[in-house]
């Protein structure tokens, strides 16, 4: 057997990024730190460089991706992913959302294949804004969080259109922090 | 006192492997080369089931495992997993194959002709025991035909389709990375056609034969006629990043078309694999022929035969029963003893245990 392989810096970053995402979904509402990255490793001029790091950890030619930011879209294309629309994409990376209407377009999978539901990545301000109460798998009882930067009616729309186990996952990024909300999490606007 | 010697397990593993390997002795480049030269049909079978075409690696895998076929194929599959996908070759059509052998049981003569090619079909199966007494068995030289058979020939099904005897399969124009790849995606049902054919191509020969034979004997609805059986070489045409199309070499392939009467037309079954393996492609094409409309859970239902002819999975699961099952066994014993205690005096229950 060859010598023990060493992870490249890229491999280490992707692994740590995934680790943050995995725990973010496992413990909804608890922000996780994404690993630091070398600015040279990611495209310049991105408003949300963390989104590029998520692409590195998750996305390749087996994915269909919708990126709002053109520079991020080029980064995703380099992974081999096919560009998609909000209706066709399995992963969506947005710079923001003015209304919750887009949620209605997202893939939710089917009862037979819930895994076909989309993953939506959005920037938000964690720890600010309106209080929300989370419950469901991964939450020890209930958890109150504050999230700002999302459009009015976002949570109501999410609750209205998802019929578990169909649904979509949401990652909210704030700089190098990420918070996960799987479809299994109930979000109550306080 | 230590409760367990953790290193004990590792030492036992190491020594058990040494015992296995001691029996085979040194593996040399010469041994690998000789295996490759002497056993081309075994090499072909291994490459087909591994879905990896490399005669040297196949010979090495055989040498390394002492001919334990399931182990050899697993070695190759595991190696294959680690290899990057550099390019996807252009689709190969039947009429473009460089054909060595091509026979039809459906018609006495077919466009392009019957080409017997290399086969032991009509040999008398007599052991050359003189070799064990010191003689060398040398092949007689092949005498070239006056008129060589054409290298490229059309498929018999194409002729039948042109004559309205069967509906030709719809042409699939998917190319390159868009072709579903069963080694990179899970097999789900109903399966894409590409997944079905790929699964049959890498299926275990014995498994395909057992289920194909069951179908041929009458457990399938359709009795196959071998429309054509072909052993050939396929040209690998690859596009260079600069755009040049070039041949990256040739691989040996086998394919079979089988047909049977289905209402007023012919039904068509097809299979192909890497390497020359006639039994496998005829049996696999028979399964393909019978798959349409097969009852759920029958041996000719696609989900049934594709899951159960996957050699690496089936052999791995079979041998996994050697692993300790103390915990599951203990758990079953507990339920059984308790049920008996509860039923003390009454006749012991005859019901089957839930499967584990």
């Amino acid at each position: 057997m060859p010598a023990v392989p060493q992870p490249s810096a890229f491999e280490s970053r992707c692994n740590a990024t995934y680790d943050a995402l995995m725990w973010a979904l496992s413990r909804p509402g608890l922000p996780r730190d994404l690993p630091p990255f070398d600015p040279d490793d990611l495209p310049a001029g991105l408003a949300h460089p963390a989104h590029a790091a998520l692409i590195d950890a998750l996305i390749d030619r087996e994915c269909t991706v919708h990126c709002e930011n053109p520079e991020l879209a080029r980064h995703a294309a380099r992974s081999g992913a096919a560009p998609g629309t909000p209706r066709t994409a399995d992963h969506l990376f947005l710079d923001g959302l003015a209304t919750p209407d887009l949620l209605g377009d997202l893939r939710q999978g089917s009862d037979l294949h819930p895994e076909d539901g989309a993953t939506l990545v959005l920037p938000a301000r964690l720890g600010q804004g309106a209080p929300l109460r989370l419950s469901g798998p991964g939450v020890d009882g209930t958890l109150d969080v504050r999230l700002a930067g999302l459009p009015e009616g976002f949570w109501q729309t999410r609750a209205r259109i998802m019929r578990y186990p169909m649904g979509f996952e949401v990652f909210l990024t704030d700089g190098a922090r990420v918070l996960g909300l799987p479809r299994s999490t109930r979000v109550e606007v306080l | 006192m230590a409760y367990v010697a953790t290193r004990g397990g590792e030492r036992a593993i190491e020594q058990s492997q040494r015992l296995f390997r001691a029996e085979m002795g040194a593996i040399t480049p010469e041994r690998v080369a000789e295996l490759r030269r002497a056993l081309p049909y075994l090499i072909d079978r291994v490459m087909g089931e591994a879905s990896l075409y490399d005669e040297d690696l196949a010979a090495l895998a055989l040498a390394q495992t002492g001919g334990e076929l399931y182990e050899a194929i697993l070695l190759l599959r595991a190696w294959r997993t680690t290899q990057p996908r550099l390019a996807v070759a252009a689709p190969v059509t039947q009429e473009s194959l460089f054909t060595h052998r091509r026979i039809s049981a459906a018609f006495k003569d077919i466009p392009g002709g019957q080409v017997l090619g290399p086969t032991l079909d009509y040999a008398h199966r007599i052991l050359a025991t003189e070799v064990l007494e010191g003689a060398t068995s040398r092949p007689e030289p092949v005498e070239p035909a006056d008129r060589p058979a054409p290298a490229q020939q059309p498929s018999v099904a194409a002729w039948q389709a042109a004559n309205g005897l069967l509906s030709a399969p719809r042409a699939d124009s998917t190319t390159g990375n868009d072709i579903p790849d069963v080694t990179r995606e899970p097999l789900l049902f109903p399966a894409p056609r590409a997944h079905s054919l790929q699964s049959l191509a890498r299926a275990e020969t014995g498994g395909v034969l057992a289920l194909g034979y069951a179908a041929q004997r009458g457990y399938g609805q359709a009795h196959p006629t071998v429309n054509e059986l072909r052993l050939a070489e396929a040209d690998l045409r690859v596009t260079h990043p600069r755009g040049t199309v070039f041949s990256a070499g040739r691989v040996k392939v086998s394919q079979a078309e089988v047909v049977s009467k289905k209402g007023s037309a012919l039904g068509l079954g097809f299979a192909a694999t890497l390497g020359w393996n006639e039994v496998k492609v005829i049996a696999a094409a028979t399964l393909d022929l019978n798959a349409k409309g097969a009852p759920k859970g029958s041996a000719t239902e696609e989900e049934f035969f594709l899951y159960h002819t996957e050699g690496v999975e089936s052999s791995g699961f079979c041998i996994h029963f050697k692993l300790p099952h103390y915990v599951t066994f203990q758990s079953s014993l507990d339920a059984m003893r308790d049920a008996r205690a509860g039923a003390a005096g009454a006749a012991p229950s005859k019901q089957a245990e839930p499967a584990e």
Partner: protein
Amino acid sequence: MTLQSLTKDWEPMAYGFLDGSAKREIRRKMLKAISVPGCQMPYASREVPMARGWGTGGLQVSCTLVTPRTRIKVIDQGADDSVNAASIRKFLASVSGAPVTTDTLQADLIQSRHRIPEERLREDQVLVLQVPNPEPLRSVQPNMSIARQMHADADYGRMWLQLYEQIVRSGRVMQGASYPSLVNGRHVMTPSPIPRWDVPKLHMARHLTLLSAGREKRLHAVPPFTRVEPLVFDDVPYRVEDHAGLTCHRSGARGFFMNEIPQADGTSLHEVSDSDLGVKTIRAAEGEDTRIGATWYVDGEMS
């Protein structure tokens, strides 16, 4: 675009054995599995240098998660010294450089076949369970596609009927290990062939459990703080193995799941199945400085 930008440097083996595309696919599927607890997610499941059925599913998850700092523990039937556990541990260490341990408390990642350690797992720990058959409905529906449709419809009637028939015939549920359990009130899953003793450890646990079947190409998950309820009738309570009163003849540990060791005189002795707990119990008895963590069972009762 240059060739250099399209490729990476040659390496004899990818870090963690699996290449980037295999890892990304497993990551994507794990995220969905965590999001729909107990629902089986199909994945490609690459061939790895181990036979199918020998932990290749757990191995692929571990290979995806591992880093040079992940402390790994591998057990089979509760024991670190089982030959298959030793083999998997050696492989994981050799493809990742990760440190290994037998101590449940020290481990970041525990790959296990058929047991959950007796010491409580923490919220920073991941348990990877090897799964031979991911489909809890197989005994009532061997066809995987039909079974999947039954999950889609939450159609668990035949599963209940089977349990009911066992009670009628034998006076109790005869399911040994792999006790079917309802996750988050929606999906029935197999907890893998862990004994009934271990299933309550998954209910509202602090750790993350990933269950992966390599041969069958399915993975499912139980996130922390998730309801895992064995299928039982209101009037026939769930019963774990009757091991609460057994004592380990080697370590003296009592009130844990045991291996039964038949003796020549027709009787049986017992030894604690969690080998590391046995080791620690002996060390503690001999006055060594040993820390035994809080256990799920105290005096043979789930606490």
